[in-house]
């Protein structure tokens, strides 16, 4: 009924503290664990014994964490297969990193409830127990569906949706040329198709980089605070840091250097970058600051776009918005304690948080919003899936990217048309595993809406 491969998943809910457990089950559980976990004593793992040691990335030698590991030789284990549980410090990032290492060693990410399924199929638990657990799987599935729904509306989904759309169009072009040779379809395969695929490859690269958990772990996520002078950027930074660091005066352009601080927001390491107020200036030092800011925006994971909540939205604000472009951003309406209101252009209002650094209004809300941007979903129940689905997403995006690169090579090499869709379908399948969408009908829909076909 099932392939006896090796599976792994995070088996503890992930919080900010305590321990996190990554469970591996299957024939390769022991070799994989020994690849990333080194006992302090230098000896091997013994069945049903807790061992203390170091978890490290065997490729780079980087130490990820220290912890305890227990090996349970089958059939004396939950699944009746060889099982290894690696315990590390808790927290989304560390445990996800450990899971990543296990997956990188060739282990497959477990489906929800798959350990239980194996336990049942191997006769470890009986039908009544299995049915009870199936109810749990079902409710978890609903939770993960709710999460997927949530992500569908989220930024990640939007971006993946854009990539998917480009690939789908390219595929529709090629399929139309293949399936309708007698229609006068006007498609220049190279130009029209690559015009769709090249931006998709660029977007995917950016997404994969953004998903690099290792980078997040080392460096935290990067958040740039941007806005015109004297709207309260440094006050915001100080509030988030809970101490005065940057010079705060009401003279426009006080902050001339880039100020970078690391702060923990709901368990997420965040590098906050305050920037010089962006506006046309004659002051050379300030100009340098402005240049640096504009340069940093494209590399930021998130931009906090600060506007003066007590004044109106100006053309200067407008041009900063332009500089932010397609970057992920939140709008902070500062000075909520002062009279006067800033009316934002329609679409921005939904992304806005009103905040006063004087009385603390909106600070908690902003911290949540920042956290939410990176870690989708807040409900305790769905935390496991947040981490799991993140690893899964990254894996899917890497596969999609590889497929598109292969497509580009094949197109350049001039392979037969019939072979071109293979890589595009692989890419769509990988993207679909994140968004839960299938493709066949979409391709036909696109063909019929793009081309006048009909004999």
């Amino acid at each position, binding site marked *: 009924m099932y392939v006896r491969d090796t599976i792994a998943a995070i088996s503890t809910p992930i919080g900010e503290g305590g321990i996190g457990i990554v469970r591996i089950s299957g024939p390769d559980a022991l070799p994989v664990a020994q690849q990333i976990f080194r006992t302090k004593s230098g000896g091997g793992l013994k069945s049903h014994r807790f061992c203390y040691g170091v978890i490290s990335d065997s490729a780079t030698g980087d130490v990820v964490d220290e912890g305890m590991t227990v090996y349970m030789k089958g059939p004396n284990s939950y699944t009746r297969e060889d099982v290894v549980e690696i315990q590390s410090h808790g927290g989304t990032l560390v445990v996800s990193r450990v899971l990543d290492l296990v997956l990188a060693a060739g282990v497959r990410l477990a489906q929800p409830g798959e350990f239980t399924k194996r336990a049942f199929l191997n006769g470890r638990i009986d039908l009544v127990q299995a049915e009870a657990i199936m109810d749990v799987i079902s409710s978890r599935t609903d939770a993960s569906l709710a999460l997927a729904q949530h992500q569908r509306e989220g930024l990640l989904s939007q971006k993946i949706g854009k990539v998917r759309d480009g690939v789908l169009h390219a595929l529709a072009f090629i399929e139309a040329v293949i399936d309708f040779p007698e229609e006068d379809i006007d498609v220049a395969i190279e130009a029209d198709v690559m015009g769709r695929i090249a931006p998709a490859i660029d977007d995917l690269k950016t997404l994969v980089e953004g998903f690099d958990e290792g980078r997040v772990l080392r460096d935290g996520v990067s958040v740039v605070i941007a806005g015109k002078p004297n709207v309260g950027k440094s006050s915001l930074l100080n509030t988030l840091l809970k101490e005065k660091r940057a010079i705060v005066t009401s003279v426009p352009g006080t902050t001339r250097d880039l100020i970078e601080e690391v702060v923990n927001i709901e368990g997420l390491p965040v590098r906050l970058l305050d920037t010089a107020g962006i506006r046309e200036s004659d002051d050379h030092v300030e100009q340098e600051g402005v240049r640096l800011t504009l340069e940093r925006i494209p590399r930021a994971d998130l931009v906090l776009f600060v506007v003066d909540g007590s004044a109106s939205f100006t053309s200067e604000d407008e041009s900063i918005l332009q500089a932010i472009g397609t970057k992920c951003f939140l709008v902070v309406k500062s000075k909520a304690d002062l009279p006067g209101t800033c009316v934002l252009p329609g679409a921005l209002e939904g992304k806005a948080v009103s905040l006063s650094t004087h009385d603390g209004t909106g600070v908690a809300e902003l911290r949540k919003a920042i956290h939410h941007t990176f870690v989708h979903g807040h409900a305790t129940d769905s935390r496991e899936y947040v981490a799991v689905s993140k690893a899964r997403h990254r894996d899917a995006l890497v596969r999609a990217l590889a497929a598109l690169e292969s497509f580009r090579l094949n197109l350049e090499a001039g392979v037969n048309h*019939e072979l071109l*869709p*293979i890589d595009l379908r692989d890419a769509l399948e990988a993207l679909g595993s994140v968004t839960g969408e299938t493709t066949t009908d979409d391709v036909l829909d696109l063909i019929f809406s793009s081309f006048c*076909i009909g004999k």
Partner: protein
Amino acid sequence: MIVYEKNYDVIVVGAGHAGCEAALAAARMGAATLFLTINLDAIALMSCNPAIGGLAKGHLVKEIDALGGEMGRNIDATGIQFRVLNTKKGPAVRASRAQADKQQYRLRMKYVLEQQDRLDLKQVEVTGLYLEDDAVAGVDTKGGVRYLGKTVVLTTGTFMRGLIHIGLVHYPGGRAGDLPSIGLSDHLAECGFEVGRLKTGTPARLDGRTIDFHRLEPQYGDENPIPFSFSNERIDQPQVPCHIAYTNQKSHEIIRSGLDRSPLYAGIIEGIGPRYCPSIEDKVVRFPDKDRHQTFIEPEGRDTVEVYPSGMSTSLPIDIQWAFYRSIEGLERVEIMRPAYAIEYDYVNPIQLHASLETKVLRNLYHAGQINGTSGYEEAAAQGLMAGINAALRVRGNEPLVLGRSEAYIGVMIDDLVTLGTKEPYRMFTSRAEYRLLLREDNADLRLREKGYAIGLLPDELWHSFLQKRDLINERLEFLGKERLTPSAAGEDLLRDWDLTGMQNAISYEQLLRRPEFTCQDLARIYPDIMNLPESVRDQLEIQIKYKGYIDRQLEQVERAAKLEDTKIPADIDFTSISGLSTEIQEKLARFRPDTLGQASRIPGVTPAGITMLSIAMKARGVK
């Protein structure tokens, strides 16, 4: 009701492309078969375009032929222009297409049916099914006669409650010139079938004497016409050209001026039409920026002046049709012999079918062709063949023949129909096949001949000639893998010509053939005998060697999917009792009643987690 004295094994209702294949397959497999039609002069009539094949459709014809069906041989005998499409895009998407002599096609098929043993042909109108318990046991006819049969195959085409539209004029008809079938679809609805409504259309037939062909661009057939059937060596009859013409802005203005009297836009037509075969008014409305639309003027036969302007179907009023067709360059004085029309008809939701095409509602009843929501002669014929085969297998008490998605386009089509249903008339496209590289026209015999022989449909002589071909291919493949070219034996000239200068080690013939531009013709320089092999064998050697990497990759995917595909779901399982499935998935499964886990996994809305739980529940039943 008078009960007819004979008791048949298989009764086929309908004499279109589905009905013909169903009746022939059943009778050839030894079943006593009755073939019923409203009009014996309309057997295998091409109600729309006078052509067989095209992308994915050509593939279907080859598969029908490989299993032992008739369509390939019939078009080979009566075709008047043969072409292979997509010759430069790769072997998997290469497809055969032929223009047919419409009357010859129909007459030859009727003759083949008449010559078939164990097959009775009768002209009657079937008005209902005769049931015993929840199984079908025969049919009742308008003339008050009941025919008894162990199984029934329904192939009703566009006849059930057929309604013809020309402008705002509409009248009941099964096809221009034929009566509709009234009462049968109501009867099916009473039996528990979900009956829906679809629409299709056909262009006018024009008088060729009133067309200036010399002003149109001719399109000729291939110089070396290649037959559809694996049992035919060549096509001998002379070929005739088609001609290409275009609409223009004036044509489009005329069409727009008639939209207020279009039954489609006036909302009179309720059936859903195919998007891949839109009427000309649809094209003009949906693609207003396109300044012209292409039409192939296809001859309807050798012995007639009637021609068929493809892509120009319409349901606009006759005065608009006159003006519109005459606005096309070269057609200024054209006379319409038969007007274009749209037709609405009833179909039955195909999710009520097993993959064998037997209905889930009534045992021993099979549906094939347009009744299942498909469109196209080839799609119909393929389903008719499978329905006929499975009815005959049922009579024998054997398991049905179900083709997988990795085995045949027929399998893809039927699986799509029974797991997804269809909202518009369903047509085959190669893009619907996820294992497209495996499902080629050239290897249809390698894929399916054995199955056709195993069920007793394929005659011995065809089986033996196939075995010879297959053995030859395998033996030569082995030879090419073993035989090597050494640098010394090759000589400088050859190495230079083949870009192998500096080659150190011997290279196998297979490795040479794997190179993209290297053909058997090239290999003949060192292995001249290869040119003595039949062309079809040389093709296989080249394709199987060049595409090995891709083919192996798809075979691996097939292997991985096989577990789900092969796991049968017990017919009596109660999906709503499975703990852990969401209500939505329970309802979906209960409605579709999939036969296998593979089918279940393709039902929209059924998640992988749902499949896991279903498989656990099935395992649990087994444990109990």
